[in-house]
């Protein structure tokens, strides 16, 4: 992947991530950088929030604001930041264990709130930083340190889950195709509402099943297939196509996109502007609140 020198200067912190050579997360870093550059996002207004895992090195690689939070809790932390100051461009960046395992409850609830933020999941079907256990998106039969006899659980379908939970922009990218992934992320940042970008981000060390080479012949782009992302039923159909075809046909692109009012637009206080900019109560207002108890 090539990161333009200027973009790198603006957004890169110079901190080296911990990723192994060839890790898919480099592609995601490049795509986020390009998306921020193309959209001219002011880095002092950008907030990149991670959970824990290999993916959690992401905020540190940027010179924007960030939080490196807890395993599985990036969405509540990111939500808190956005709800406190919705002038911020908030981007969550985590892994599949983080977002679809320990933190999956937050995915459902953050999606249904339609808080205007972007959630990028570096999905490698593996727990990498804990040295290679099966993750919630690993296929049945997958052998790993935690499933030496093969996984006997159905994998989570994050796209169908996000769509059914009320996410208003649901896309999938591949870190082996940074240009396409950049478009997915740009679309997510520009979209007004909760966006999930699930990214196939191969783990070159622990997942020898789902490699770049394995993905390439199976992947096709929804844009080229004339998929209509405004159609909920078709979106669900595409979201399950991978498992329905026994992983022979894996669509990437925008599965679903719909315009709905965001949480910030509907909330009785936030619709008047970012919370952080709202005036604090006057003495008279406090007295009035006390007076209710007379």
């Amino acid at each position: 992947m090539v990161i333009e020198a200027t973009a790198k200067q603006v957004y890169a912190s110079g901190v080296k991530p911990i990723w192994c050579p060839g890790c898919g997360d480099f592609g995601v870093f490049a795509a986020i950088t390009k998306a921020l550059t193309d959209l001219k996002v002011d880095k002092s207004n950008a907030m990149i929030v991670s959970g824990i895992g290999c993916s959690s090195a992401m905020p540190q690689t940027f010179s924007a604001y960030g939080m490196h939070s807890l395993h599985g809790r990036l969405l509540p932390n990111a939500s808190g930041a956005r709800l406190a100051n919705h002038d911020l461009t908030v981007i969550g960046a985590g892994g599949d264990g983080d977002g679809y395992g320990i933190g999956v409850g937050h995915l459902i609830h953050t999606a249904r709130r339609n808080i205007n933020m972007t959630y990028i999941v570096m999905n490698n079907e593996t727990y990498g930083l804990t040295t290679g256990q099966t993750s919630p998106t690993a296929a049945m039969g997958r052998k790993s340190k935690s499933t030496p006899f093969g996984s006997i659980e159905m994998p989570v379908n994050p796209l169908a889950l996000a769509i059914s939970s009320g996410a208003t922009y649901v896309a999938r990218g591949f870190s082996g195709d940074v240009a396409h992934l950049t478009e997915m992320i740009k679309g997510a940042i520009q979209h007004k509402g909760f966006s999930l970008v699930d990214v196939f981000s191969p783990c070159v060390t622990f997942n020898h099943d789902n490699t770049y080479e394995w993905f390439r012949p199976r992947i096709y782009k929804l844009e080229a297939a004339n998929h209509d992302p405004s159609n909920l039923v078709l979106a669900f159909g595409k979201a399950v196509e991978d498992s329905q075809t026994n992983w022979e046909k894996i669509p990437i692109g925008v599965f679903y996109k719909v315009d709905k009012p965001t949480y910030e637009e509907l909330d009785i206080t936030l619709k008047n502007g970012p919370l952080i900019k709202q005036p604090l109560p006057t003495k008279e207002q406090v007295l009035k609140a006390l007076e209710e108890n007379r």
Partner: protein
Amino acid sequence: MAGITVRIAGANGDGVESSGALLMKVAAKNGMQAFGYRGYQSIIRGGHVWFQVRVGDCDEKLQSYGHTIDILVALNQDAILNQASHLSDGASVIYDPTKVKVDTLDATKCKLVPVPMLDIALQVSGDPIMRNTVAMGTVLKLLGIEMAVFEDIIKGMFSRKGEKIVNSNVQAASKGYGLEGLQSIHSIKKDGKSRFVLDGSTSLSIGAYASGCNFYAAYPMTPASGILHWYAAHADKGIFFKQTEDEIAAINMAVGAANAGVRAMCGTSGGGFSLMVEGLGLAGMLETPIVVVDSQRTGPSTGLPTKTEQGDLLFVMHASQGEFPRIVVAPRSVEEAFYITSEAFNLAERYQCPVIILMDLYISEHVETIDGFDIDSIKIDRGKVDKSNPVPTGRYKRYLYTEDGISPRAYPGTPGTEFVAPSDEHDEYGDLTSDALSGIDKYVEVRRKMMKKRMTKIETMLKNESIFAPGIYNEGADYFFVTFGSSTGPAMEATALLKDKGYNVGVISFSYLMPLDKEKTKEILKGRKLIDLEVNYTAQLAQVIMMNTGIEIEKRILEYDGEAITGQGVADKAVSVIQSFK
């Protein structure tokens, strides 16, 4: 002892709570003092519930809800069965002879007041629910309170529901008030003041609101839900409330919001606090100022959800892995909940650490008359905040090493002070030293320095603040109750009762529990005859005192049955404890 105690008892759905609230209001508007507490269960309809209101003279603040019942309103048969043992000598028992039998009561020890509540209710409104209003009329008469006050309040409460409802309520109460042969038997001193009626949750919420806390996140849990309801009801006043999917989300949202620069709070009870523990450590590591409320109820596990306890003290002091500065406070009264909450936000932001407000069901939910709050005394101190990078050409050092351990922070959105708040160990920039760098000499030193920087804040707060020691009441006393938080009121009341018996007892009471100024605390405790008073089994405060001062308090009064303690109850138990001192 001052105060007349009225207990209204019946089933959920009988209007027990609204009657109690009404009586509180009548006393408060009529220039009296009042103190109310509700006994209820985890059931929405049915069960056995009561509301106890103690009404007292204007010139003496009541410190607990009353030990025995002077006037019982028995709305059903269970009320007679369950409450008979709580009656004081000569208590009045108001009941409906068509519904409730009183032959089990000893008529020589109480005064029976039969009131045809149902008949009157049906006569004036056709609605049986009005029968408790009839009974309230009778209560007012016995208390010697004029009907006019009641009428004003009814008009205020029901005017939206129309004149007919107002009139039938007034009529129902008047009939109960004017029963033939009914005499006033009590006389309560009053002044011209109209007082407020507040519970601890409301007091805390207004304190937070007044201090600029405009972000509250919570998951419903008794007995912390009062704060949730307050914030939800006032969300149109320029503040933000979020009901979250669980307490994990609640605390993490609060951390995210506080890091973004608003004053943020989350609240729960012990079970939810258990889920918040990891998030508490996150705030400790990120040095993010948040305020967390734990309103304790009877544990362990789900315990008694509608009953009170002070069983979480050691838990909140030590919750989460590793070590980081935190402050634990426990308001000693409804009024103090307002001021201490305000101070909690200043402390959180001054020292960039989590502050835990330890409430309990008793202080969260009981109601008291309050004269008012000194709102002008509320000062907002947001601590050290950089509005720009002090080193404009360099990367911002959010976690700058400083002598007092406090590094100025910056709000996201500020140009030039970009940083990442990291849950892993980090250097001054906030860059992680955990992954590729841990164990390398230079970063072993960074760990040592960063840990010391954070922990130094404890020394700084002890040096700069004078609050981290207990208060003392009646300094010249022979014996002292040692207690904290909500048990202080009953302890204070007990001292007055014990004085009548010839014992000179004082109170040493903690509202700031962590950190503790060891020397100061020792100075206050040493050489005195101490009686530990707590609402838990293992004397947790006594353990904290032992750890901090080496002083062991051997004499103890410990209650753990879930019921709120009273001044009389404490005094009764204290006599034998006092006599056991050599």
